[in-house]
Structure formats: C-alpha cells, structure tokens
C-alpha cells in the first residue's frame, strides 16, 4: 500500500498538494519534514521562485510562501497569486502586525509566524485547502490590535476571544475563561477572520473564504455586508 492509498483511506480523497516557496533550503527541509508527518498533505514542489515552483506543480492546492524572498518583501507577488485564486499561506519571521495585516489585505488565506511550529502549520494548510480560516495566535494579536480607522468592526466577544487566544495560545483555556465551549471560541475567532475578507483589495481567495464561511453557517451574508447590524453579530451560529 503506497502513501497515496493510505491518504485516500484516511480522508476519502487524494492528499492535498502543497508547494513551498522559500529562499532558505534549510527552512524548506524543515517545513517539508513538518508536513510529512501529516498523511493528508503531500509536498509537490519547492523552490525560491513562486513562478518556477507553480509551473512545476500547477495543481498545488496550497502555496506556503515565505514573505521575504532574496531580501525583498513579495507582497505584490502575494496579491497577484491571490487574485488568480491561489490559496497562499504566508509564513514569515516578520511578525509585526503591519506586515501580517498587509498580507491579509493582499489576499493571503492565512498568516503563520515561522516560530509557531508544526501543529499550527499543518492546521493552517489543512484549513486553507478547504477555504476555511485558521488564525494562529500571532495573527489574532495583529487583528485585535489593528489600529486602522477602516478596520472591520468586530463584536466584543470576537475581540475578547482573539485577545485571549493571542495571550494564552490555548483554546481550552480561552473557553474556560470565557465560560463557553472550545467550539464557540473557534467560531468567534474564525468569524473575526472572515470579517477581514472585506478589508483591502478584492481577491478570489477572499471570496472563496467568505463563500465557504456562509456555506458552513459561520456567518450570515448580511453580517458581512456593509450595512450590517451591530446587534446581530454577537450570537454564535449553531
């Protein structure tokens, strides 16, 4: 039984193809090792040039992109890929909130700090592949501290969940603290993330995240609309 067959057994489908773009071979090897432990994922191509990597593996469903390639921030490349519908998970050691929010605005499906580790990396890629949000703690911090006047309007519960998740990095602890279930904590955090699909320029990936969130019942269309009612956003959807 080969690896693909095993993956098919577990997920009921072929494994998710991942492309890794980084200019440090040691990081590529590290991330590849992280993902190798997860049968639902398979690394299809790696390299330091997004165009070359994607030509080698056009079927890749998720692209892990280092935001800094050869000394240059590739926000514009990220925007180009996102506009074309590529699900890009940005991972970077540049974890200042400005950079993270700029990456979301450019259409990144998720932002992962390089030090956040394997667990978050695998979870982020798996979520990204199905157009579902995943908010690692560093990104939660950037969102809750977003100083921009045109930032999305988050409800008090969403803000609190983001803040506590950023502080503790444990959804179980956040749930105990807020006296709600872990599932509800995740909903608050994910809903805050979905509201960010309206920030910055439109991108195919943002539309996909939003569509999936509506399909999953995470948000109602009127909640993300420009004329949303503030009062209705605080109730977790069942």
């Amino acid at each position, binding site marked *: 039984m080969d690896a693909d067959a095993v993956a098919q057994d577990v997920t009921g489908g072929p494994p998710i193809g991942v492309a890794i773009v980084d200019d440090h071979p040691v990081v590529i090897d590290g991330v590849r090792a992280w993902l190798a432990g997860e049968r639902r994922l398979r690394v299809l191509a790696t390299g330091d040039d997004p165009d070359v990597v994607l030509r080698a593996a056009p079927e890749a469903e998720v692209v892990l992109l280092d935001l800094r390639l050869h000394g240059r921030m590739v926000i514009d490349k990220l925007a180009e890929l996102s506009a074309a519908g590529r699900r890009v998970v940005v991972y970077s050691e540049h974890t200042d909130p400005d950079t993270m929010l700029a990456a979301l605005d450019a259409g990144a499906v998720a932002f992962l700090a*390089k030090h956040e580790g394997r667990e978050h990396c695998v979870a982020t890629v798996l979520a990204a592949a199905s157009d579902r949000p995943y908010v690692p703690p560093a990104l939660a*911090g950037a969102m809750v501290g977003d100083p*921009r006047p045109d930032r999305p309007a988050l409800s008090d519960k969403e803000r609190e969940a983001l803040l506590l998740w950023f*502080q503790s990095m*444990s959804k179980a602890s956040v749930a105990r603290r807020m006296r709600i279930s872990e599932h509800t904590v995740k909903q608050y955090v994910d809903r805050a993330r979905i509201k960010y699909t309206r920030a910055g320029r439109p991108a195919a990936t943002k539309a996909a995240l939003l569509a999936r969130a509506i399909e999953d019942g995470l948000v109602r269309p009127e909640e993300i609309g420009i004329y949303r009612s503030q009062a209705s956003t605080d109730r977790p959807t069942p």
Partner: protein
Amino acid sequence: MSTDLGAALDGAARRPGAPVAGWGGAVDGARRADRAEPAGAAAGAVATASDRAARIGAVTIAMAWHLAIDLPALSGAGTSPAASTVVAAAWLVTAAVGVAAGVRLLRGGLPPARRLAAVLLVVDAAVFAAVGGEQLFATANWVWGGLVWFFLLVLWRRPVQWLLALLGAHAAIALIVVVADGATAPADLARFAMYVYGTSSLPVAVFVGGGALAILARDRAGTAAATLVVEAERVAAERARTERRARLALVSGTAEEVLAELAAGDADPADPEVRRRCVLAAARLRRLIAESDDVPDPLLHELRAAADLAERDGLPIELVAVGVPPELPVEVRRRLTDPLTTALADARGSARLTVVAGPDEVVVSLVTPDHDGPDTSGPPGTTSPPDTDGDGEGPVELEHERDGEIRWTQTRWRRT
C-alpha cells in the same frame, strides 16, 4: 539557525512604517500629529505673550489719549451749559467703557464687543449733536480723534471688518452733523474727509498690525517647537537603536556560542542542557525581532527589563507587543506591570508575555505553565475578583487564574 540571525538583523534595522503596508504611513502620520501637540501648545504660549504686550499697548494709548488730550478739550466745550454737561458726561461714560474693556483685556479675556460698541456710538452721536456748529472741527469735539482708540479696545481680536464698520458709522454720524450744520462747502467736505482719514488710519494700522504680529509670533514659535519635537524624536530613536544593537550583540554572542559548539560537535543536540540553551537564545532573538517601536515606550521598557531579569534566571520568555501604548501616568503603569513581574517570579518552564495596546485600552498578560509550586499572585484554582482601583485616568483590572494547564495573569487598563 542562520535564518533566525539574519531575521534578527533585519528586524533590528527595520522601522515601522517601512513601505510594507500601504497604511503604515498613515499610522506614522497620526503618531507624529500626537507629538506635534506640545509644539502647538508652545506656539500658543508665545502668541499669548505677544498678544498680551499688544493689549497693554492698546489700553495705555486709549487711556493716555483720553486723559492727556480729551480731558483738556472738555474745558470750553459746548455752546451752552447743557451741551457742556452732555460732553462731560460722554467723557465719563467713555472712560468707564475704557476701564471695563481694559480690565477684561488685561485679564486675558475679550470685552463684550457689540454692547460696548453700541454705547460708544451713542456717546459719539451725543457729543457731535452737543458740540455742533463752529466747534465741530475744534478740539472741543474730542470724539473725532479720541473715541477711535476705544473702538480698538472693545473690538480687540474681532474681525477687522467690524472695526471698519464702526469707523464707517463714526464717519456717517460726523457727516450727518456736518451736513445738518450746512457746512457743505467743498472746503468743509474736504476737511471732513481729512479728519476721517487722519483719525482712522492710525487705529486701523495698529489693529491690523497687532493681529499680524501675533500670527507671525505663533507661526515662528510653532516652527521652532516642531523642530525641537522632531529633534527629540530623532535622539530617542537613535538611543533605541543603540540599545537594540547592544542587545543584539549580546544575544548573537550567546546564540553563536551554542551554534559553534553544535557545529564543532562539542555539544550534543540530545542533551537537555544544550536544548535549553538553544531555546533561551531563540527566545531572546525573537524578542529582539518583535521590537519594532522607534521611540522607547516606558511600559514596554519596564516589561522588557522584567523579562530580561527572568531570563537571566534561565526562564525562556517570549514578549510580544501589539500597538502603541498611550502615555500613561506612572501609577497606572505600575498597576499594569507589578502583578506580572510578581507572577514572573513564580514562573517555571517558559513564559509568554503579551501587550495589546490601543489609545483607550492596554492589556498586559503573562501565561506560564501551571505547576504545583506556591502561587504568590493569587489563590489557586480561582479567579480573583477583579481588583479595580479607580483614579483620574481610569481603573486597572487584575485577573489571575490557574486552570491546571496554565497560570494566567492579566492586567487591563481602560480609559474612562
């Protein structure tokens, strides 16, 4: 690990507001606007001082003119005792208006312009009517030249149009009396025009000049103060950079040591002690990368100092700050940081210290793995009641809890 070192250097060299995010500049602009406030205040102080000198000058001119020129003119004014009484009473009323307006001006206020201007116009009309005839252009008609200085006082800092309107009314009253007296010969009208011009030009010049000087003084002082603010910011940024470089040197030293030993095979990656040293060095590097403030913030400075201290005792600690804390009173800052430094003393294994700050809210939190050891920060297993303590700037809430997995200490300040 070389990537981490490179990142640390990048992080140290980078400044917030670098053209990563389109709105970074806007944030910087807002912060600069905050700091420009003291500049505006200083400019205001200079403008106030220069305005005060102008006020003293105007009050002195009006009162001196009233005593030295108008008062002697009263003798022999009026062709009848009744007319003389009117002229004298008008002098007294004008003096009273002058004192009232002068006191207001010297105390830094503005006199009630409309009411006092109306009183002055009544005085104007009464004196013109009383003196009439041959004394119209004589010194006895003291309101011609004397009253305009009081116009200046009551209309201080009002639009110049108001003064022109009042002078116009003054000239109109004079013209009516001149025409009523039948003095319509070209020579009389020419004399009238000369009087109007002669009595109005100087007060208008003083009025306009005084206002312009105050504006100029404000501008110059504002520019000087803004220059100082920029310079102070530059010095502060320079200091922050030097401090960061010094710490980078220290941190890279320890990191390089471990790396060199690993590379040479002297250190065994399986050795828990070697791993602990790696974790410590990595935590320090990450903290350094996380520092992105270009001006040292007292709150972050205190927390960093506490983190450095805990780290020296071998505790890997992560410090992540989001946002720019507002200027907080020392007492609020102390309430925010003290519970966390106490909790840090009890920490075992590792620690995560976070700060989320906005203009109206600052939340500081410390999360460490829970352990069986004593807990000096609060009763175990419970949430201590929020310790709110109000003061002028808003209360600081303290929450502390243990849930078997983590110990969580959080302080939160909200602007009230």
